[in-house]
């Protein structure tokens, strides 16, 4: 049975609107203008237990709004949803005990005291037995290498250190569903990798269902087999990441290694880059095997690889097509 079920979910925000200038401001005193913005527009999907699903989309696509509805923070305008069999908007205690949401831009730790003290507060709030609490806390401290971090006041931590502590705090009560909204935003590559590794490891160990939004495709590629692409509040694609690439990549990249890289290969495809021995070509997907065969037949090639285009470009193409799956 799916852990998350969403059917035709919609969220419309009413946004005040007026023209620039004093006259419009005075007019606004008498008559307010508002506009309805459909942040989420009839999305339907399910998530199975233990899955890690990547929620992709540009800013304003409706990703965060969906996560907030699923975690009970926002009331949907229409549609149905259930998480672990609960209706999130009812905010039942037993529901809240089984979920966690971490938002990269928000913090829930007490700013002026060490994270360890906030962890204690979470222990009390979620009624975590002492032994379980210590086990979880020490496990996270070990996995994310936070021994020094947890003793410093949160305000003195770097962004990455704080995110580690935020994630640890959110998981102390061992939620079954973990929502992550841009968990690696603003972090350096090493820290992104470490947080990614932790999320993957945590999912493997405990079978926690994870729904993750990120602007960094590396997060998605590393963690999510399945992606849901959302744009203008609608789902454009829902399925395996590999199928997304297969379906939406219009071309492939052929990297050729030659003894002499100065040879002109423009007759075989678009030359993307070139150095002393390596040439990178871009060719239409349908022509890949024909071009590869020609290259091997015509030239003294020492190595040749065929690669998919970067995921960012594939996603951009999905958005451009706005094709609903």
């Amino acid at each position: 049975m799916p852990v998350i079920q969403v059917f035709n979910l919609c969220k419309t925000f009413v946004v005040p609107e007026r023209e620039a200038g004093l006259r419009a401001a005075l007019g606004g005193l008498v008559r307010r203008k508002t506009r309805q913005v459909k942040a989420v527009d009839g999305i339907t999907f399910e998530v199975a237990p233990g899955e890690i699903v990547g929620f992709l989309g540009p800013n304003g696509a409706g990703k965060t709004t969906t996560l907030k509805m699923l975690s009970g923070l926002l009331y949907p305008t229409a549609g149905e949803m259930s998480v672990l069999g609960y209706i999130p908007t009812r905010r039942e205690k037993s529901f809240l005990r089984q979920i966690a949401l971490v938002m990269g831009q928000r913090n829930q730790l007490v700013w002026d005291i060490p994270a360890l003290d906030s962890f204690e507060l979470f222990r009390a709030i979620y009624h975590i037995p002492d032994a379980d609490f210590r086990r979880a806390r020490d496990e996270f401290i070990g996995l994310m290498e936070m021994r020094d971090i947890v003793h410093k006041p949160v305000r003195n931590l770097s962004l990455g250190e704080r995110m580690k502590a935020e994630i640890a705090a959110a998981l102390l009560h061992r939620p079954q569903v973990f929502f992550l909204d841009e968990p690696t935003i603003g972090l350096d590559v090493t820290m992104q990798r470490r947080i990614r590794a932790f999320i993957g490891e945590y999912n493997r160990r405990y079978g926690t269902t994870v729904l993750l939004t990120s602007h960094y495709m590396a997060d998605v590629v590393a963690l999510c087999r399945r992606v849901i692409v959302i744009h203008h509040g609608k789902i454009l694609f829902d399925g395996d990441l590999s199928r997304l690439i297969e379906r939406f990549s219009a071309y492939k990249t052929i990297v050729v290694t030659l003894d002499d890289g100065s040879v002109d290969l423009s007759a075989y495809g678009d030359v993307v880059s070139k150095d002393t021995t390596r040439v990178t070509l871009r060719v239409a997907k349908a022509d890949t095997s024909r071009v590869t065969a020609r290259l091997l037949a015509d030239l003294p090639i020492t190595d040749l690889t065929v690669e998919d285009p970067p995921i960012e470009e594939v996603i951009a193409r999905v958005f451009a097509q706005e094709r609903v799956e």
Partner: protein
Amino acid sequence: MKALLDIYWTDFKNALAVMFQYRVRQLFWLLGMIAEPVIYLVVWTTVARARGSEVGGYTAGEFAAYYIAWTLVRHMNIALTPYAFEDRIRRGRLSAELLRQLHPLHLDLAWFLGMKVVTFALWLPIAALLALIFHPTLNPELWQVVGFLIALVTAFIMRFVILWALGLATFWITRVSALFELFFTAELLLSGRLVPLSLLPGWAQQIANLLPFRWVFGFQIELLLGRLTPQEMVIGFAAQVFWFLFGLGMVHLLWRAGLRRYSAVGA
């Protein structure tokens, strides 16, 4: 209940830890808070002396007692302001709190109770210094002291709940500061904070009796100064209970309705 006490105790300790961390800030904050009653005290004792003996039934010594007790009452009834509540909603901090299986009111209450311990400890030497300078006239009976101490706590809890309910207006009005200003101005005038209520005209005193402000401020000072009968003390506590229940009811109603609206602002 045990679980709730555990939460209160843990949050209480965290509040203490934060307060201890900013010792200098606490001291300056406290000194700033003392400035207001000292000004009132100097003005009214001067007026009392100029009039020969007393103003509105208060001698210079009684004014000193009033405003020294005032400093403690003021500290003890500090609660989460609606401004802080507005900030919490606008910046979206409420989201993190809503994810927990605990009403955020509990953590706020425990936090402020923790703060009181520190401010009370800091208040003691300041009160002693003020007493040395202004020579208060204060001879309370035991029941009045006990009543005063209980009323300090009950007034804080009552004010805390009312301010929380007021803060919830932010769910409906994004910039709600003007409403808060109105509330605090009324409180300043009708609570006994600016002047003892007996110095106000009769009609103003009657209005004050009907509103919550007197019962969070002037009531317990008048009790300590021996100006209330046991019956009047009971009426004061009953008024506190009434306003506490009123505030709690408003929090309950507005909270449920407000959460449905929590979206346009800062979620």
